[in-house]
């Protein structure tokens, strides 16, 4: 059997990679996608613990996380579309109207 620590290490690496991607990228859509990567990393961790404790609650949580992430993706993309229509750009640097 695979030692569960490997899964956890993988989850941590994925999470950090997602975070780095968020900070490196300049366009909104890719930043959004990196957030999805972070979600997946978290899901991986949940399932690892579910298997470790032997209870199914972790899997249920992952189920809900996936569902909610789907809903959130829909709305988030709608907002990005609206932003693009307004500002004609998806470069994050140009969206600073909340300054101050």
């Amino acid at each position, binding site marked *: 059997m695979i030692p569960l620590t490997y899964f956890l290490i993988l989850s941590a690496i994925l999470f950090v990679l997602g975070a780095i991607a968020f900070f490196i990228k300049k366009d909104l859509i890719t930043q959004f996608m990196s957030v999805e990567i972070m979600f997946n990393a978290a899901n991986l961790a949940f399932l690892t613990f579910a298997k470790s*404790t032997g209870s199914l609650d972790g899997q249920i949580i992952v189920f809900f996380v996936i569902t909610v992430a789907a809903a959130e993706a829909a709305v988030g993309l709608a907002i990005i579309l609206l932003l693009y229509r307004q500002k004609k750009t998806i470069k994050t640097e140009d969206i600073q109207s909340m300054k101050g």
Partner: protein
Amino acid sequence: MAQFLFFLLATICIGAVLGMIISKDQAYNALFLIVAFVCTGGLFGLLDAPFIAAVQIIIYAGAIMILFIFVVMMINLRKGLEPEKKKWTLYFAVIVAAVLVLELVLTLKGALEPAGSSTVAELGSPTDLGRLLFTKYLYPFEITSILIIAALVGAIVLVKKRDKA
């Protein structure tokens, strides 16, 4: 066998994410992400969660990424955007990354049950999941359905073109 599968899937996953980071084109980013999600689905399967693995591939790699690709196509940028160029941000990012990985690993490791890997085989069968869903987690289940409807309606309302009267 399982070990080999694990390392294969893990490598492909990390490779896809790295590719997403390096690539400048949004369409390529989306495709790389699909690969990453499929691998993750496989990893879920390795963790005795077949149902969740199926859900992951159907919803994440299937529905969500399709949404992303639609939006990428609608925005239709000619050229991609370059990632950060300044040197100090890269170093900073590497340091932050290292620190974060270290912390996360340490935290998570400490939370593992001392039993190590468990031996329950039929852990994530749909029957058991379904039973839990409809008894213990009934309320979240119902509320999530309302949430999805809200998101649906919200997304459509947001993007609707205003009629210029």
